[in-house]
Each structure stands twice: as structure tokens, then as C-alpha cells.
């Protein structure tokens, strides 16, 4: 059904949107799910863009996009279930937190970084928020070396500068987790 620049009709059940990852792979997703990705949403908000157009997402790998879509799909489902009921809301929130924990638990550090960049590019606020929180938890109270490896940083302090910086923060230290 071609929709030339008009707003879609209210009964859009079953309408899908096509997203193309950086390697050319096409993902077909339900409209409600696709609209979770604010970047995609604003792509279609422009007049004259038909819903049949394939959205090019050149900065997102297909693996990352697959995971993002999977998360958004379940998030949309959970939101639809909860509605106004206080009890159901609480339960839905717990389920969503379980879903988030599951997603990050198995990810390698590289994988999480990739997801963060994808969520940032696609502008998905909730996902970016919990991913960053998960990264924060991962580097919490880890050794300096671990954090350097995680962010792939080189130590650019000179020995004197490093000594000075360590002294400046000595007040905080009482014991650090093993990597």
C-alpha cells in the first residue's frame, strides 16, 4: 500500500518498515517497534517519505541491529501489557529490568560498546540509559588497567604526572576488586 506523503491511516496493524544495516542486510520490523528508534521516526516524519522506503542505517552493524530490534520488540510488548494498572505496571517494570539484565549479561565488552554506539545513533533513550548504566557497573571499582583495556586507552601520563595523580586520589582507596 503506497502512502505518498500522507499520514498513515489509524488501522495500521501489520504495517512494516524496512531497515538496512551497514552490510546491506534488510530487517523488516513492525511499525510500532521501528518508531522506538527515534532516528527512524524522524526519517519518516519528513514529508514526502513513503513507508515503503528502506531506511539506510549505515553506522549500525547487522548483529547490533538485530539485538536492538529484539529488545525494542519486547519492550513494546511489555508496555502494551501494562496499561494503567498499578500492579501490572510494577510487574512490567520488573520484567523489563530482567530483559535488560539478560541482554547485557552475555555481552562482551566490545559487544556492549557496539550496542551503545548503535543505540546512540538510532536515538533510543531507554536503551542507551541502561546500557551505559551496565557499563558503569562493569568498570566500577576495577583496577586502572582494566578500565584502560575496556575503553582501549593508552596511558599518556608521564611517570611524574601519574605519580602526582595517584597521590591526588589516594584518599579514596581502600581496596580494589581483582579484574
Amino acid at each position: 500500500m503506497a502512502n505518498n506523503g500522507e499520514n498513515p491511516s489509524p488501522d495500521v496493524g501489520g504495517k512494516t518498515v524496512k531497515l538496512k544495516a551497514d552490510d546491506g542486510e534488510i530487517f523488516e520490523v513492525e511499525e510500532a517497534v521501528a518508531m522506538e528508534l527515534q532516528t527512524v521516526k524522524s526519517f519518516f516524519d519528513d514529508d514526502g517519505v513513503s513507508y515503503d522506503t528502506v531506511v539506510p542505517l549505515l553506522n549500525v552493524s547487522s548483529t547490533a541491529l538485530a539485538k536492538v530490534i529484539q529488545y525494542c520488540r519486547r519492550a513494546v510488548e511489555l508496555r502494551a501489557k501494562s496499561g494503567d494498572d498499578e500492579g501490572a505496571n510494577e510487574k512490567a517494570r520488573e520484567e523489563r529490568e530482567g530483559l535488560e539484565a539478560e541482554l547485557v549479561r552475555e555481552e562482551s565488552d566490545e559487544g556492549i560498546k557496539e550496542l551503545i554506539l548503535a543505540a546512540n545513533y538510532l536515538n533510543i533513550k531507554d536503551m542507551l540509559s541502561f546500557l551505559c548504566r551496565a557499563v558503569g557497573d562493569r568498570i566500577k571499582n576495577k583496577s586502572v588497567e582494566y578500565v584502560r583495556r575496556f575503553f582501549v586507552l593508552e596511558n599518556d601520563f608521564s611517570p611524574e604526572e601519574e605519580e602526582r595523580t595517584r597521590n591526588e586520589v589516594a584518599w579514596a582507596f581502600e581496596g580494589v576488586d581483582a579484574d
Partner: protein
Amino acid sequence: MSRKKPRTRSTLAEKPDLFDDLPDDLVVFILCKLSASASRPSDLVGILVTCKRLNRLGLHPLVLSKVGPKALAMKAKNWSDSGHYFLKQCVDAGNVEASYTLGMIRFYCLQNRGSGVSLMAKAAIKSHAPALYSLAVIQFNGSGGSKSDKNLRAGVALCGRAAFLGHVDALRELGHCLQDGYGARQNITQGRRLLVQANARELASVLRSCSSPTWHRSHPWVNSSGCGLLSDFGCDVPAREVHPVNQFLKEWFVSGRGELGQELRMCSHSGCGRPETRPHEFRRCSVCGTVNYCSRGCQALDWKVRHKAECVPMERWLEADGGGGDEVGDVVEGMVVGEI
């Protein structure tokens, strides 16, 4: 804002650099989450030693403004100029907890009364309940000045605002003030009602936090053998959490890091940590005269938790300051909830 770094790992040769390096704004976002959830200073501060970029981003005002009270909770024995400077940077970034923490430390430990009060006031203006309460205690006692610097009405007003925000100690203090007509017109029923409310709130918050699975892991300092505080409700719950800065004050003076002037005592309630700023500033238990407290709230709490069991009547003491209504006289029993 993203910096391209030379890639030495050949396995990633096919991927664009963008995936291997996070731009500054995302790193700041991550560090904000970290600082907000950090439960110890070392959780966050280690980041600053990794490299210049993280040092710069870790000290970004946005990150500093989100640092929580637990991450600011340095040990008194580790206090140093650099620790002091870190707190100051957090204050400048607009961190309310840091304003309160540094205010308390400057007022009581470093004896810099003016700066301490103004920092606490900064937090109080942003509706920080503990800051409002601490300022009230200072007003009630005329801390940092003489007996004539006491301002009971101001104390009551500040307690009122803290109580409105749900601060349990302030509620309790206010209840006592109303019962005794101290700083406000006497209203016994209303005072009593506030005391009951304070106990109820305390029970609710302790039960709520007890049921959290991470509670015991993150509160190692809490005495797990329960306290008599809520025994009137028929349950024995662990003593409630103490704000990190009270812990700091206590360690500071007990360890001898800070000198307590001659004749100056500390508040006998173990969760308080406040010292007197002039001799005989605090009120003594009129029954035994061996313990003293900075506020009625501390007295009430300590009575229930500890002192009731050990208080032995000696000759009656009057507040050595002389007249002026300092006498602690009313033992706390009367307002115990069990009676109601």
C-alpha cells in the same frame, strides 16, 4: 568529538573505527551513571588515573554533580587536601550532597563555622533535608557561638521544613518542641501526633529497605543484631542507616584525628558524631547525668536503643549553663509509642 586512535589489532581491520572508540559525550554519560551509582569513593576515583582523557572527563561538572553520598564518604583517617579539593570541586559543580558533607566537615571538624554554615545553607536551599535538620540543631544549640546565639524559632522553622520533606529526626525534634512549647507555641496533642508519625515513618523505611536483597550487602556497618528501637511494634529490626558524614565526624574525633577541646563532649548517640562547640553546650540526662545529647531527637533515639537499659539515677543534675531552659529534665519515656 570522537578521537581516532591508531588501531593495532589486526582482527578489527575491517570494522570502521567508530565502533572501537566512544565519543566524549557518551563517555561522560557513562561516567555520570557510574558516579550516581557508586557506593564507595574508589568506585569512581580510579577512573581519574587511567589517562588524561578520562581524567578530564571524569572531572567534568556533569559527572561531579551526580556523585552520591556514599561515593563522597571518605574515611576520616584518609582526609587530606586532595580529598578536600575533590569535595570542593563537587560543590562547585552543584552537587548538593557534597555541599552538605563539606559543610558539616568544615563546621565541626575544621572549626570553620562561617563557611560550614554557608555550605549547608546552600544545600538547604535546594531542599536537602539533612542539611535543614543540621542547621536546625545548630540554631537550637547556638553552636559556634555563645548561649545567647540560640535561636529557637529559627530552629523550629528549619525543623519544620525538614520534617515536611520527610526527615524522621526533624519530625521527632518538632514533636518534642511542640510538646514542650520550646521555640513554638505549646501544642501537646499535635506534638504527640508528630512523634507517632516519626516512629511510623522510621518503621516503614526500615522495612522497605530491609526487604531489598542488596540491603545487607551494602550496609556492612549496620549492627545486624537488631536494636530495641521499634520493639514497641513487636519487631526487631536492624538499626537504621547513618548518613556517611555522621560516620566521618565520629571517626574524626574518636580516632583523635581531630582534637576535641578540653571539657567538650560528643553527643552520646552513636549515630550522631556531633561535638560541642563550647563547654556545656549539649543537654545532659537529668536522671544520671553521664550522657549528653545535641538534640531531643538524639536523646529520644539513644534512650530507646541503649540508654534506657543503663540509666541509673544519680543525684539530679541541672544544666551547668545555668537557667535558660536547657534542662533535659523530661525523660523520654512519656512519648514512647507503646503507651498509645
